[in-house]
């Protein structure tokens, strides 16, 4: 009984739920913004990495390698606490979005690159032979096929981004985790933390299931 009172306290849960939901909303905003910006950045980087002039290809590769190596928490703290020394002062939301986007973009770039490289040469040749411009070839022929191939790893990356939003609580971002820790302090009871954990799982579990389903379908070989 004591256990239930401590971890699953209904009264505390009811009292702190509005706070948690406000935090959840911010977590979702942060996740969605970072995912979309990361996709755009990743696509851009992958195209540079594959098709740009050699110096730009090299720079894209360096970028991708650096941002896949740096721990997200370190990057976040550098952006939020170090950049103000050179006059760049970002809000917690902007700092967290920037850090998540920069890292997600690097991973996404590698995912897109793998997808584009998996498209047979003949698809490029047929497009060129028909007189399509490079841009038309990418938009109409190559990317639609490449994106289809990389939907499972892209979804995986989205899951990671949403999970990593929790790190934003260290820069005083009132996201789900931050609200939960505050609610816990307020109520002197860990129920809000448990509730936060359950909420994270509840929104990410469906995505995890979706990825497994994609992967199973790919293995069967739809076409």
């Amino acid at each position, binding site marked *: 009984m004591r256990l239930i009172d401590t971890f699953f306290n209904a009264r505390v849960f009811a009292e702190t739920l509005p706070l948690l939901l406000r935090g959840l909303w911010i977590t979702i905003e942060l996740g969605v913004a970072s995912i979309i910006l990361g996709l755009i950045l990743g696509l851009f980087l992958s195209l540079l990495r594959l098709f740009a002039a050699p110096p730009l290809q090299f720079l894209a590769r360096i970028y991708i390698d650096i941002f896949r190596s740096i721990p997200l928490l370190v990057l976040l703290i550098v952006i939020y606490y170090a950049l103000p020394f050179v006059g760049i002062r970002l809000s917690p939301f902007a700092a967290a979005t920037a850090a998540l986007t920069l890292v997600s973009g690097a991973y996404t770039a590698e995912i897109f690159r793998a997808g584009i490289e998996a498209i*047979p040469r*003949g*698809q490029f*040749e*047929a497009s*060129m*032979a*028909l*007189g*399509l*411009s490079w841009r*038309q070839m990418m938009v*109409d*022929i190559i990317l*639609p*096929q490449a994106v*289809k191939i990389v939907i499972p790893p892209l979804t995986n990356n989205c899951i990671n981004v949403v999970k990593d939003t929790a790190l934003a609580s260290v820069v005083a971002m009132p996201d789900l985790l931050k609200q939960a820790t505050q609610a816990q302090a307020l109520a002197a009871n860990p129920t809000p933390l448990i509730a936060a954990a359950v909420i994270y799982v509840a929104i990410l579990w469906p995505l995890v299931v979706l990825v497994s389903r994609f992967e199973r379908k790919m293995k069967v070989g739809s*076409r």
Partner: protein
Amino acid sequence: MAPIITMTSVRKRFGSFEALRGIDLEVAEGEVLCIIGPSGSGKSTLIRCINLLETYDEGRIAVDGIEVRPGKALQAVRREVGMVFQSFNLFPHLTVLRNVMLAPMRVRGLAPAEAEAKARELLKRVGISEQAEKYPGQLSGGQQQRVAIARALAMEPRVLLFDEPTSALDPEMVGEVLDVMRSLARTGVTMIVVTHEMGFARQVGDRVLFMDGGMVVESGTPQQLFDSPREERTRAFLKAILQH
């Protein structure tokens, strides 16, 4: 009449291997030219240089007076030169109809309705009208290759390049593709066909060209080349393939 394709001393190297060792060739408008020769003789490389899917190192190629080289003019060349590949290279994520409609809409700026009408007509011509809404993966190899021909024709090219169009097909499907090509030849479009189908080259070709080792060994009318080849290498090649 001025030739539609002119190649002058064209050379192409892959590393230390010389794939084309000085090709001089003129193709007249409306001509059907068949290129035969052993694998590795440079015949595919030769036609792939005409629309610059392969770059060449020396010499000059011109299509309808436009020099074939990287840059703005290349689009103009590719608009006039259609290509059919050994492995079809249809776009698997688009329906048969969309495969044929795409380039006329994007490159020629045709309205969708106009492009669709034309695509349906071409699909009818190659005998695939019932499959228009299917995806390439649902068709047989022979049907896919006929769609690929329709796709190339939709751009109304003045020259059609065929890169071993029947080599990837099951034997029973070769005939249907050759039939389409045969009827095309009668329409007066310029065709360059790299092929191992000697019967087709003999019946349909205006001229046959034998290549070996990156060079044109000899060329002539089908009768000349098949019945009284001048060069020893041509004789040896023909003997080897006609024996079985």
